[in-house]
């Protein structure tokens, strides 16, 4: 199963490595990790997604709670929260497929940020599964490079 954690932490040096180290030490894999300051510059917010059985996900939550630099841990469920991911992707094109590619982006609400002679740089954000689907669709054109932010999530 998938666990989505929204974690408030002290915005200090070493805290990110303490939190990620906690996962590594217990053999828990981090699927995605997104970090940023909150409106209070002393506090950062992290969204961490991880996969594991019920016991693993429970242990992750408990171990996060034990960390002194962790202020609050919330476990989010897919149904009761909004999950988003943003992606920048460079997709190759040629004269024959350029128009359908641009049309596809328009339909999906993806934004073409730059048209280079051989590729388009596209920005796309959506629910994580849709981002996956978008990537699959781009594979037919030829993906040159991808940057993803990882999931950010918030309770509804």
């Amino acid at each position, binding site marked *: 199963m998938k666990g989505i954690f929204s974690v408030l*932490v*002290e915005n200090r*040096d*070493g805290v990110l*490595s*303490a939190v990620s*180290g906690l996962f590594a*030490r217990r053999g828990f894999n981090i699927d995605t990790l997104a970090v940023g300051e909150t409106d209070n510059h002393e506090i950062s917010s992290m969204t961490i997604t991880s996969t594991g059985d019920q*016991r693993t996900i*429970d*242990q992750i939550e*408990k*171990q996060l*709670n*034990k*960390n*002194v*630099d*962790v*202020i*609050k841990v919330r476990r989010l469920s897919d149904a009761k929260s909004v999950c988003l991911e943003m992606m920048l992707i460079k997709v190759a094109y040629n004269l024959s497929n350029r128009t359908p590619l641009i049309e596809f982006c328009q339909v999906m609400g993806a934004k073409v940020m730059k048209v280079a002679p051989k590729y388009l740089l596209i920005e796309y954000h959506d629910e994580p599964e849709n981002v996956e689907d978008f990537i699959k669709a781009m594979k037919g054109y030829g993906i040159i490079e991808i940057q993803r932010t990882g999931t950010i999530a918030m309770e509804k």
Partner: protein
Amino acid sequence: MTVTGAEAMVKCLEAEGINLVFGYPGVAIAPFYEGLYNSGIEHVLVRQEQNAGHAASGYARMSRKPAVCVVTSGPGATNLITALATAYADSIPLIAISGQVSSKLLGRDVFQEADMRGATRSFVKHSYLVKDPDDIPRVFKEAFYIASTGRKGPVLIDIPMDVQQAELRKQFHYPEGVIIRGYKPEIKINPIQLKRVINLLDQAEKPLICAGGGVILGNGEQVIREFCEKFNIPLVHTMMGMGVLPKKHPLNFGMLGNNGKPYANKAVGRADLLLVVGARIADRAIPKPEKLTRRAIIHIDIDTAEIGKNVGPTIPLVGDLSEIFAMMLDGDISRKEDSWIEELEEIKTSTVDTRVFSDRLVDPNLMVQKLSEKLDDDAVYVADVGQNQLWSADNYIMKEGRFMTTGGMGTMGYSIPAAIGAKLVAPEKQTVAVIGDGAFQMAMNELSTMRNNNVDLRILLVRNRYLGLVREYQHKNYDSHYEGVKLSDWPDYGKIAEAYGLTYNECASNDELDEKLNWFLDGEGARILVCDVDSENNVK
């Protein structure tokens, strides 16, 4: 009046009531040592940094308060890591202060720079790198608070040299309380859960308490004893839980686990309700925790993360165990029938000790039995790691004293420095370290610490000229292919003792044991007794 960072550090220790620290100085911590020089705090110089940590561990366990160890940057600090890991595994409250290179030089790999916060991350409860001298009072207050509350453990304070030298801009003020957003150890006991537990205990016909080291760390021995006696509930314990009840207490059914008593394990099998208290249920105590799940298990622990980690499903009750047991003492619980105790007593007597003591050299089981009979009721027994630890745990007749060992990490050489620490807390108590010849050679540098500080420690050295427990493992699992385990006949321990000005004796047969142990425990002054054990004499 302004003070320097180093002076502030000393003031913080004074405010915490610390009057003794264990350490090993170096340039990066020299300003703090100047502060110590001008204070009333005693410094015990160890001979290797790891032992500063172990000595502080013994001191903390005996005084039941956090103890302090101090090291310099780089190799001094990295040498301490094993001791921190040991204390962390056993939940011992330590404050480790390490010097660090100047803050301006951090990250440049200058002489004796080591990233201690990064290196110790998985072995400490929390760590600090202090970059501003004005943070010192708050950091120390928090460190002592974190180390000694909730599930106890070591806290590291890494302080760059320039921070120790700089003057505080503000007046020194030691805070009265702490505000840590992410650390709230006071757990309110869940009244519904407590009621459920009391109900289960009331209905149970064959309840059994399984007590771990957390009971001792939580100062819960007395209240659990009252609880057992009031409701006629028997108890088994882990290795770290030795001493919750005296060994000969009628409700104590011994140590469970791989290396424990068969009747203790059988008691676990017969119980209809298991009350696990302050124990991790790690592999050594219960190798197959999944087998336990067919009966009701109540798990009481201060650490939420322990619940369900190794055994489940359970009825959890999180909180301070002394508080919980005090509440349960007033609970509506029926006093258990004597038939349950009689059933266990019967198992105990039917699994009589059929062991025949080896007549080759000294039998280690007999040695521990005789030693514990002769020890004072309140003696402190520190067992090292290896066969000697298992012989000790199996045969030691616990009275009202303390049994200490490193159950979690199993760090060789722990006993001598830890016993030095314990003895410095309670010089009036008979203190014995029982150690094998492998571990002794890891820790014998501390004999001079012992001498320098007039620590009257009795060291019982179990000599079989092998790394016995590994040898035993190779015997059972690798067709007796003994590789890398032979210690040979060196050194001559009599000469080692002489070199350190210690009195010395050897015992090579069971017949001599009484006389030699009497010599060992009598009179004044630290001494070493070597007991020769046959290398073929295995734990099992």
